[in-house]
């Protein structure tokens, strides 16, 4: 038991313990609650950065607890885990600050922040899971921790959205569980291994393996919102904005997408999966999801619903990248895990600001809002440009790698999908920008709050500005050390094919 054991535990515990404590705090102890939240988030970030340095220098972090006969709970931190951990930890800090501001005066804050912390605990658990069992455990925990956040508002619509969310995710979880158990009975191990651990079963269990792949991919595909399993995501928009940020950028859909990556590379192995003939269909599903999400986004007037369909589309880029399975496409898919997170969280923060400050929920209500809230809309614009794929924002890097990766792998059709998607992205984002910046503002906003001299509360303004700057930075300095792109390349080098 040394640092390699305790550091992953610290990463987990730094949100678990504050979360559990917060549950039992009285509603009016907001000072202590904020302290716990921020201390936990900062501690987690520091621990993660420490691990980042360690992993960069080749340290392997592993924590192992006996759990089932022959199966342990394993937390193992490698480059791939770290990519996701850093993303969710960093964004969680910002989201926490944002949520503190956002929920300033609303009831049930102890409950909210308790589950919020549990949610991020589950997410870093998913990220650090060293075997499929641990992954399943945190994956289900994530479902449970998110549900109260989705229904937080307590309205009938929220309750129903919660039921839909649960119906999808628990169904997915059951399939994932079935696939996992089945796989275990065949292999006798569930440890994530670079290039997979099932290839030795080879031809004898081909049918079973294809079935297992289908079960598990559908299982994680639900959270990754692959069409046709996506319908919970737009409905979940009834939740407060920090929750949307969490769902779309930090935790839930990311966990699904990350699951696809894990399954393809560390369970089946890209090569073996390709030989099973399952990656092609997966890529097609991802492509279809990209186009379908974009098309649906086009017709949404509700801002958050438009962003939600945008997420459906954007997260599928990750799946597309890993399903194409060439080295460059892999880098593209992996790096999009981070890029999409940073960009989409910016957009949701901004949407939340509009709703909280001015009561704006619809695109049609956004006329001239750029003049009222220039900082917010500037951040939003950066995020939107990134989504469309304009350089130098992060989205461009992704699309570039995905495109040349697809060409390299001989999957030319994917390029058309990417191009079409970019056009559609432009088609549903540019009108928003146009309305916001170039239309005259209405005489009165739907429901305006007074936050003093600034355009809104600093806790609401700071996070989107930071994430917008990050979105640009990761695009601009993509070649710098420790940039997501470099890191994704490192993963590909260390765990996959590159020499």
């Amino acid at each position: 038991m040394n640092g390699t054991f305790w550091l992953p535990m610290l990463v987990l515990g730094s949100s678990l313990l504050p979360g559990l404590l917060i549950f039992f705090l009285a509603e009016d102890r907001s000072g202590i609650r904020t302290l716990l939240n921020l201390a936990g988030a900062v501690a987690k970030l520091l621990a993660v950065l420490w691990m980042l340095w360690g992993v960069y220098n080749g340290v392997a972090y592993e924590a192992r607890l006996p759990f089932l006969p022959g199966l342990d709970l394993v937390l193992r931190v490698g480059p791939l885990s770290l990519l996701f951990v850093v993303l969710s930890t960093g964004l969680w800090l910002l989201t926490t600050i944002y949520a503190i501001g956002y929920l300033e005066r609303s009831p049930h804050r102890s409950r909210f922040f308790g589950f919020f912390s549990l949610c991020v605990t589950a997410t870093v658990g998913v990220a650090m899971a060293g075997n499929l069992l641990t992954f399943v455990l945190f994956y289900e925990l994530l479902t449970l921790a998110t549900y109260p956040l989705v229904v937080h508002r307590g309205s009938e619509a929220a309750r129903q959205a919660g039921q839909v969310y649960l119906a999808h995710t628990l169904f997915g979880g059951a399939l994932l569980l079935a696939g996992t158990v089945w796989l275990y009975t065949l292999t006798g191990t569930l440890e994530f291994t670079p290039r997979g651990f099932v290839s030795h079963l080879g031809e004898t269990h081909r049918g079973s393996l294809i079935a297992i792949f289908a079960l598990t991919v559908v299982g994680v595909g639900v959270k990754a919102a692959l069409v046709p399993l996506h319908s919970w995501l737009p409905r979940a928009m009834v939740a407060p904005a920090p929750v949307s940020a969490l769902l779309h950028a930090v935790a839930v859909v990311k966990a699904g997408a990350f699951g696809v990556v894990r399954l393809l590379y560390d369970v089946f192995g890209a090569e073996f999966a390709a030989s099973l003939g399952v990656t092609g269909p997966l890529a097609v599903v991802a492509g279809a999801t990209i186009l379908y999400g974009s098309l649906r986004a086009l017709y949404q007037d509700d801002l958050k619903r438009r962003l939600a369909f945008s997420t459906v589309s954007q997260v599928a880029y990750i799946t597309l990248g890993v399903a194409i399975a060439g080295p460059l496409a892999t880098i593209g898919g992996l790096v999009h895990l981070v890029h999409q997170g940073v960009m989409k969280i910016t957009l949701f923060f901004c949407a939340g600001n509009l709703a909280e400050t001015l009561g704006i929920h619809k695109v049609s209500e956004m006329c001239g809002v750029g003049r009222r809230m220039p900082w917010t809309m500037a951040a939003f614009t950066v995020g939107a440009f990134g989504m469309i794929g304009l350089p130098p924002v992060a989205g461009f890097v992704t699309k570039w790698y995905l495109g040349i990766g697809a060409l390299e792998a001989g999957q030319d059709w994917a390029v058309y999908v990417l191009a079409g998607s970019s056009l559609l992205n432009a088609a549903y984002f540019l009108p928003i920008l146009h309305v916001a910046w170039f239309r005259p503002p209405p005489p009165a906003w739907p429901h305006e709050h007074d936050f003093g001299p600034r355009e809104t509360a600093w806790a609401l303004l700071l996070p989107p500005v930071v994430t917008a700057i990050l979105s640009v930075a990761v695009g601009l300095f993509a070649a710098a050390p420790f940039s997501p792109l470099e890191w994704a390349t490192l993963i590909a080098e260390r765990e996959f094919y590159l020499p």
Partner: protein
Amino acid sequence: MIPNLASPGWAVALIFIPLLGAMLAFLLPRIGVTLGLLAAVLTAGSVLPLLPMLAAHGATNIRIGGWGAPLGIELSIDGLTMAMLAMTALVGIAVSAYATCYLRPVPSRPDGQPDLQQRHFWPLWLVLWAALNALFLSSDIFNLYVTLELLGLAAVALTALSGGADALNGAMRYLLVSLLGSLGYLLGVALLYHAYGTLDLGLLALRVGDETVTRAALGAMTAGLLVKTALFPLHFWLPPAHASASAPVSALLSALVVKASFYLLLRLWLTLFGDLDSGLATLLGVLGAIAILWGSIQALRQARLKLLIAYSTVAQIGYLFLAFPLAATGGAVVWGAAVYLVLSHALAKAAMFLTAGSLLRFGAHDRIADLDRVVHRLPITIGAFTLAGVSIMGLPPSGGFIGKWLLLQAAFSQGRWGLALVMLAGGLLAAAYVFKVIGYAFTPAVVPHQAGLVPPTMEWTALALGAGAILLGFAWPLLWPLLEIGMPFGALAPDPGAAVGPWLGGPRILAP
């Protein structure tokens, strides 16, 4: 370390502390609650000294009266017994604490005279506890029958205690069923005694063969115990009885009493009948599968919380019986999974019924659709319900997950796709009915609630049980070695000598 010689005495204490406590509480009703609580604490505490004894010496037989089998009666402790005793102690102490508050009339009486229900609850419940412990400890099939009678009668009386017409009806039906079940079991006892001339389980295990009379005894005893365990389609009595009893009693019935008859069935199966290739295992598995689906669907259809929880018990019992066909090739681990399900269901279901009691107290009703806003007013209670629900659904990392994982694993590796499918479907249905309740609990009230007072004890005991069901998920590495003491599930042992536990006529320690 407690001296070895005194240790077997703790097993006797487990039976007689609650029994004497019941008598004292009956004799001195004015301080009955205090005496009852004291006895409950002492009884639960008596489980602890047995653990080091078991760890140090392995399974132990205790000869009551010094005679030993076949003339006298023996008590026997192995890992399985220990697990059941500990489960009873955990649930028992929590329910005891809960009951002191729940049974107290809402406007507390100035004269300190305990309520009539409270006054009768304690003796009955302590006798029930004594009967449970006696049943788990006994290794004599006739003595087991006596404990079964004691248990059944106490359970029926407790069911009727809440006094409503529903409770009386439920109790009446329960009484008939209980007697019928006992009769079936007794028939088997008579047959076995006549055929093999002994009542001791260990000796019987050495003597039984695949003969008609053994099969008849198997049929009679299994049928009797199935009625008491409420396996579909013999479950009809359970929902009315469990739903109409008062909350702490429902918790005891669902968590412990049903488990006792299942334990007995398991024990008989493991020691006497396991080798008979009768096709009964398959039948039990099929009935268990139907029970899972039927019970879950019925639970989903209920409008009242306590009925929902009671039907959930019907479904969860089904899981236990899936172990029978799976263990034929799956071996000891499958039985371990069944025991795990027994334990985690006990904690979870007790927690659920206790929360139902708190909600009932809070809103003066248990209509699910009108449970709104509870989460605001009773967050700990609804939290307890959720934790218990997680285990019932079989989501990780709960105790229920461990059991279901192992059963699923056995089903997959044996190619029993049907059973696997049922287990997964059962988990989803369980999620549906659990979240049906939780969903409403988050919505703000349309109907104003007339809030009764729910003391913190009631909330926290339920939470402790729910948390226990979750923590059980991490306990396999600790519990499995314990369960294996004395090899109650046979097999697994590499050398044949080690496989012979006291249940199979192994070493006997003269106590104390």
